């Protein structure tokens, strides 16, 4: 910790806005008083879970008796547990959503970025699923996916194969849930891509057009590179949330049927809240965290790879 009397560097002074209130013990006290309520709750509900959760991963714990140190036992048990592996597999499969949702969101953003009449309506319409609770969304799609339901009706109308009840079929359940994630998430990424598109200077695109570049050329050479930072953020966000998918599963399938939608985070949830094996669940959480960080890094490399952008 720094001492209260320490003078701030010139850079820090500059960032604080230059001259003004001096660094006195009284001012420091006031500053910390402003921060106190926030920091207290932050430490209890954000920092403590990281610390205690990591510790728990190496213990046996059921809340009633104190945690018992077991070393790496939980991790060994996880690696032997077939359910955990199939959960991991389903979580990784869920990453399939990422490229689809990003491509669709970029296309939708390009569409609603056009200056057309009534475009505001479409932007709002695409955003409605985003602001709806997963509880409601899950229930609605449970009904939509029924054997006699609208999804099958539409498939039949299009002359496609009509499935049974999508969520009751182990072959289709995971994909059905993935579609809901896609459906609910498109509007969210659309808004982010819209912001990205609007930050690309129109002069650049105009100049390219004047120089005789076609529409597709402008898209590939100007628009897409300009979107690269947004693509990086968005694909990172969606990869991480795909690996950690939980709420959709919790509301729609509870991991079933026959474990076909059982994901890694659902595994930790059921170990903790159904079997009261908190240590094992925490260890599962750490493995999921490591995997999502790895995928985050891969994603980072992929989106940054190739030519460096401006």
């Amino acid at each position: 910790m720094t001492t209260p009397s320490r003078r701030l560097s010139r850079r820090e002074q500059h960032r604080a806005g230059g001259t003004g209130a001096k660094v006195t013990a009284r001012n420091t006290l006031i500053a910390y008083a402003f921060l106190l309520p926030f920091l207290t709750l932050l430490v209890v509900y954000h920092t403590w879970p990281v610390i205690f959760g990591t510790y728990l991963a190496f213990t046996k714990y059921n809340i009633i008796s104190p945690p018992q140190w077991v070393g790496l036992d939980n991790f060994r048990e996880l690696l032997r547990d077939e359910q955990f592996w199939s959960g991991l597999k389903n979580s990784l499969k869920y990453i399939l959503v990422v490229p689809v949702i990003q491509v669709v969101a970029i296309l939708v953003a390009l569409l609603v970025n056009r200056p057309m009449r009534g475009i505001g309506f479409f932007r709002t319409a695409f955003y409605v699923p985003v602001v709806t609770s997963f509880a409601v969304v899950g229930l609605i799609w449970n009904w939509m996916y029924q054997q006699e339901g609208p999804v099958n009706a539409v498939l039949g109308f299009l002359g496609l194969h009509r499935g049974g009840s999508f969520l009751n079929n182990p072959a289709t359940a995971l994909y059905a849930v993935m579609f809901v994630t896609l459906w609910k998430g498109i509007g969210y990424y659309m808004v982010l891509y819209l912001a990205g598109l609007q930050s690309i200077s129109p002069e650049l695109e105009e100049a390219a057009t004047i120089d005789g570049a076609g529409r597709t050329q402008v898209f590939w050479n100007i628009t897409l590179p300009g979107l690269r930072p947004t693509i990086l953020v968005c694909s990172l966000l969606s990869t991480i949330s795909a690996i950690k998918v939980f709420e959709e599963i919790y509301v729609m399938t509870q991991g079933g049927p026959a474990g076909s939608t059982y994901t890694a985070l659902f595994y930790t949830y059921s170990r903790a809240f159904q079997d009261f094996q908190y240590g094992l669940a925490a260890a599962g959480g750490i493995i999921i965290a490591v995997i999502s960080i790895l995928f985050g890094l891969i994603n980072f490399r992929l989106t940054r790879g190739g030519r460096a952008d401006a």
Partner: protein
Amino acid sequence: MLETRPAPVQPDSFAAAAARLKARRRQRRRLTDLLAYTVLIAIALIMLYPFYWTLITSLEPTGNIYEAKIVPQAVGLRNYAEMWKGTTVPFWRLILNSLIICTLGVSLTVTLATLAAYPLAKMRFPGRDLIFYAILALMVLPNESGLIVNYITTIKLGLLQQTNPVIDAVRQYLAVVLPGLASIVGLFLLRQAYLGIPQELIEAARIDGAPELTIWRRIMLPLATPTIAAFAILEFVAYWNSFLWARIMLPDKNLLPLSAGLLELSGTFSTNSRAVMAGAVITIIPILIVFAFGQKYFMKGLEGAVKG
């Protein structure tokens, strides 16, 4: 560049060519617009039909429930009446719970963030940058065990004890909102908004001897109102929609917020999905109203939140 091009020699033929070009471009534009509208309408149907379908099915008293339809076969409020009566948990109680949780959650979250962002943006004190970067780091630290540890914490704090009905209710409402009150995103949003406020204004107030709390209330809050509004709307939607935490840990089902209670009811109402649909419609309506009114704020807040 345009200026370097040679001046037109035959203005008439150029004008004619330009007009032709313009007409062709307009025609092509109309065609692409038509195409764009077709695609947009198709996507809008996919996005909105599930909601519309739920609404009309909830209005039908009887009939083939899961059938795809465009208009309801009959319209009545029977399902809404049934939902309202509830079975295990009265529906009005769920609405009340949600209102309490949202009011508590939004006002406290906004207050805490507006307070904490002030010294981080406008005061000088030792440890400021350290705290700022520590909070930043917390955003990326893995927190997969958050649900589990927060549950343990809530129990250890005695928030789930059951002794006296009134105190129990207060404690359990607190248990629902406490984990979400320190919003890092909100802190960043507000710090960003505060940084844009001229330092001279604050210095002048300080020279006049105004206490920091007064500066915060009289200068920072009014000037950051657009950001505060955006953040409050984001938080309202988040609290109104949250269900997982409450459903997992609340011992008293009578205190569940609406979206969590809806899931609970969908279990007990398994024989009458139409009533649950009515409940789903009621759950969505407040969000749609808030969203419609605060849409601009909402999008701004979202963009700001991601850009951090």
